[in-house]
């Protein structure tokens, strides 16, 4: 299943020891909808390029789809003394 949303959280501390933060929820399903026409246009172009460089286009599509569908539940978190960043794909 392709990821539906991404969550970004950034928190940092100012010099006056006050913490600021912002969180951003990105609805990826809207991005997929917007990108779908572009992908459909790019399909034959990619197939032509694959033909030129002798790569199996179907295997490439399958691999790209595999990466897209397995991105879910990826999580990266970095905590530094003065900041914290979290990126989570759901």
């Amino acid at each position: 299943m392709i990821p539906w949303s991404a969550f970004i959280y950034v928190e940092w501390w100012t010099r006056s020891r006050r913490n600021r933060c912002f969180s951003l929820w990105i609805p990826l399903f809207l991005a997929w909808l917007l990108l779908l026409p572009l992908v459909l246009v790019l399909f034959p172009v990619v197939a032509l390029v694959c033909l030129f460089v002798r790569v199996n286009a179907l295997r490439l599509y399958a691999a790209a789809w595999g990466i897209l569908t397995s991105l879910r539940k990826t999580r990266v978190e970095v905590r530094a003394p003065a900041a914290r960043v979290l990126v989570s794909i759901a």
Partner: protein
Amino acid sequence: MTNSTIFNFESRNAMNDDRKTILEMLAAGRITADEAERLLAALESSPANSATESSPPAPGDAAARRAIKPKYLRVLVEADEHTIGFKGGPTTVNVRVPMQLLRAGVRLAGLIPAQAHDQVDRAFTQHGVPITLSQIKPENLEELIDHLGDLTVDVDGKDENKTRVRVFCE
């Protein structure tokens, strides 16, 4: 006292030390309760694995281990302020990557044209990773990913460098 009893006793002592270290890190606020819980769970599962390896394998063990496939590759890095240069405390990096993503990535790497293999191999070797891409074949991929499940890497910095890197599957 048999060798296995001594081994169990020593491993239990090491486990207690690790548990103590985790609890101290939690008390010092260097890790969250969630992270401490995950580390303790990983700690509890690792001696079980080593015990399984030290004793003769039971017929059902291999099947059971194969049945419980790890879902994520975890990379935990903890660097002290001297190493990173940020003052005020340690910097931690916590990455969780689905194993499925690794599988897909390796499959994508398998699509690299044969004529590009030499260049990629040379670049890998220059960066200290002596890998021959042409040796990675689709039939070996599943085996490669499956064996990642047994992978645990612990790196502790020496002397003043207190950087800790932990790579494991869960």
